[in-house]
């Protein structure tokens, strides 16, 4: 029974791969039949960095941006998070800054190597802006 299951799953995976191919280019739904231009990862990242870099961003836009970003099938890049944390700094919103770190850890799900990597990349920013991680504050445990 199990060999049959694996045979089925690989053929299934191949047909499913052609059906939903968000692929390595965009986390947003992109079907093979659309003529829309597919956004590259770099364009996506740049767009979000620009979004959070707005000098007079307001709290609503920050929260809306973060919520939208968390809805995608990806963990945001360090540069996007850096931009978002700086936006929190401009808005004097330490709570949101720490929440962003918690959200990112949650987004990684079972992939435990992502969060330490992001903390490593964001260490200078966290030091500069004076943001503690949830682990340092002891709020990462239930």
């Amino acid at each position, binding site marked *: 029974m199990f060999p*049959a299951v694996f045979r*089925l*799953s*690989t053929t299934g995976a191949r047909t499913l791969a052609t059906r939903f191919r968000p692929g390595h280019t965009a*986390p947003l739904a992109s079907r093979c039949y659309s003529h829309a231009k597919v956004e590259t990862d770099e364009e996506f990242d740049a767009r979000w960095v620009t979004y959070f870099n707005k000098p007079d961003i307001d709290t609503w836009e920050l929260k809306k941006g973060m919520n939208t970003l968390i809805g995608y099938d990806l963990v945001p890049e360090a540069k996007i998070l850096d931009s978002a944390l700086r936006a929190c700094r401009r808005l004097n919103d330490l709570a949101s800054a720490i929440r962003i770190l918690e959200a990112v850890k949650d987004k*990684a799900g079972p992939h435990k190597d*992502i969060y330490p990597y992001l903390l490593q990349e964001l260490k200078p920013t966290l030091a500069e802006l004076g943001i503690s991680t949830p682990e340092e504050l002891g709020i990462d445990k239930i």
Partner: protein
Amino acid sequence: MSLPKPVMRGLLGRRLRFHLPIAFALSIVAAAAFKYTVTEPRKQAYADFYKQYDAVKEFNAMREAGIFESVRPSGE
């Protein structure tokens, strides 16, 4: 020691692409197993029972047992 950059995109898509075919396959197998171990034997059991069923004989047995109101046992 600096950590290498992990894959951060498309993780859910990858998981679904792997697990959904398995889930569908296992569900179909479970349904097939139930069909052929439960429902088909049951249907066969009913068919076998009714193949040689004599309704009149059964009716008379019930009548003699006295369970009907519309028709009494043949003795009364």
